[in-house]
């Protein structure tokens, strides 16, 4: 209850931040070199055609007026119309966001689980083989960019071994999956479509692994050093000194206090996933939010870019809100 009220208050605070972000994005896309109107019109378009298109897109009014109109539209739930496709941006986003959330969500869960288990185990056997391996991953992982990682995975697991499907989308068309949420595994379960579930999971394997590996290195470092400092604390030594079973010591006196110190840092690390998703989606033709935004950026599709930045900002703020709530839940000392 206390947590819910806190979350509500935090959500309200979100509004002014989003207004600020929207003003900034609005101005930034307009100072970017490149004219969106030219990208939609044919080479042969006349000055009159350009002026007409400019008016159609609402780009002829003074900037402050343009912004206020945009703000009013957003407040009523209208995110605008894509210059390129002529579709409602809100609808286009709705069709793609599920796929991206699915991608990032699985990557987060897997990275967090793996980092926790390996990080704690490495701390328990400090200087052991696993510990050395974890530290190697920690260093190497930070040095390899995600597109290189993704390419290596594609070459090995699709190209050489043929274990993974081609990087050409989220699910086999032949499975006849009906999109509902856009997250293929959920849609497959909702529709009771077992072949589609298998195909979706197979398609998820490589991009999720790529993204998970991107955040695994910093996460692993964080968990390991957190666990090491817990193990040096009197509280941990006391539990060992009182002869508690190994299971209890590890679960209650090591893993739990370690995790209680991590949420904010974890949120910070997970923030990288949003940027990483843009590249990974493009690499795997994911047809998600990231790929959509990249195309929008190239063609200077203002409504698309503005919407993507807004969604990203909301995602970031939600991520930190969740981190704070989890922190308060894990650590009784944190008052919110």
């Amino acid at each position, binding site marked *: 209850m206390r947590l819910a009220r806190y979350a509500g208050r935090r959500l309200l605070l979100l509004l002014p931040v989003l207004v600020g972000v929207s003003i900034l994005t609005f101005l930034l896309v307009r100072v970017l070199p490149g004219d969106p109107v030219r990208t939609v019109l044919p080479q042969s378009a006349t000055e009159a055609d350009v002026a007409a298109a400019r008016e159609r897109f609402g780009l002829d009014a003074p900037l402050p007026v343009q912004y206020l109109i945009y703000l009013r539209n957003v407040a009523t739930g209208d995110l605008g119309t894509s210059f390129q496709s002529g579709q409602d941006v809100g609808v286009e986003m709705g069709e793609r966001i599920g796929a991206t959330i699915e991608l990032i969500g699985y990557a987060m869960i897997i990275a967090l689980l793996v980092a926790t288990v390996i990080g704690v185990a490495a701390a328990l056997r400090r200087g052991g083989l696993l510990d050395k391996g974890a530290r190697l991953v920690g260093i190497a992982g930070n040095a390899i960019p995600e597109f290189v990682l993704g390419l290596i995975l594609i070459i090995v697991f699709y190209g050489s071994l043929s274990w993974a499907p081609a990087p050409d989308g989220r699910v086999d068309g032949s499975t006849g999956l009906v999109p509902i949420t856009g997250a293929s595994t959920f849609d497959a379960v909702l529709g009771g479509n077992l072949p589609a579930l298998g195909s979706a999971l197979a398609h998820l394997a490589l991009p999720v692994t790529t993204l998970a590996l991107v955040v695994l290195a910093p996460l692993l470092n964080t968990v390991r050093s957190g666990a090491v400092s817990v193990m040096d*604390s009197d509280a941990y030594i*006391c539990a060992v*000194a009182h*002869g*508690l079973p190994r299971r209890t010591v590890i679960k*209650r006196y090591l893993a739990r206090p370690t995790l209680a110190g991590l949420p904010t840092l974890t949120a910070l690390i997970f923030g990288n996933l949003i940027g990483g998703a843009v590249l990974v989606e493009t690499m795997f033709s994911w047809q998600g939010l990231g790929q959509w935004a990249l195309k929008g950026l190239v063609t200077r599709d203002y409504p698309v870019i503005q919407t993507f930045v807004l969604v990203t900002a909301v995602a970031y703020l939600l991520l930190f809100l969740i981190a704070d709530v989890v922190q308060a839940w894990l650590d*009784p000392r944190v008052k919110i």
Partner: protein
Amino acid sequence: MSLLSIRDLSVTIAGSTGDVAALSGVRLDIEPGTVVGLVGESGGGKSMLARSVVGLLPHTASATGQVLFEGDDVLAMTGDRLRRHRGAGAAMCFQQPLLALNPVRRVGDQLVDRLVAHGGAARRAARARAVELLGQVGIREPERRFRAYPHEMSGGMAQRVMIALALACGPRLLLADEPTTGLDVTLAGEMLALFRREATENGRAVLLISHDIAGIAAVCDRLAVLYAGTLVEHGPAAEVLDAPRHPYTRGLLAAVPSLHGDPGQPMRGGQPMLGAAPQSCPFEPRCPSGEAECGRRRPALVEIGPAHLAACPVTAREEARG
């Protein structure tokens, strides 16, 4: 056979500024049902001695000698044998209870963890016993406090919980590391009485660590005095208090302010930080009655009376004459 026999225990800790000889050739026995007070100035190695009894020296420490518990050497114990010794054999009350409690676990659950581990009871049954234990160490409203987190407790309350945690292990030897530091006089007296009862009524051995020799003497059967990692005197509590035989013990006692307004005589100088076991008397630089030979040879701990030992050749000679 004693419950605990420490034989020539030396502990060296490798540090960033060189080695520290935390303990040098310590010999100490503890019998069931007795309270042994271990006193000395800060840094003398009291905590290291207690930690070696539960086999939990810092990673950088190396130990030689023997810590025999019921005949088994703790320093050689491993795995399950060591885990069974910890808690059920010897349980330690840590010096800073607020730091030694798990900050993210209710104190009641921490108690239950111990009861389940050593009593073999189910969690549900252990809960009632945990509340009872909290009451036993003097916590009011134990039922409510069971659900408290460590950060919601005062220092005194945390100290009581720490003692309850150690008692919950049902130890044959209780190691209490400065359990009265920072407590008010009434509370300190209450805690000391509790340790005395645990020894007399439940037959536990108690090692009571303190820097306040006068404060704990009344509940102790024997007193051991540690100086720079060496045991300098060990004898019946009343005797050590009334007729201390080592100049360091005398100094400690003289430094105690009296009730009648005497501020006490602080000892001059400080305890040395030894890099290796001392070759001469470590107290010689501060000793009022030092002789030339004290700087040449480390005095052995010798019997100077019935069950009374001191490591000072000067006193030993006086004793022989007198």
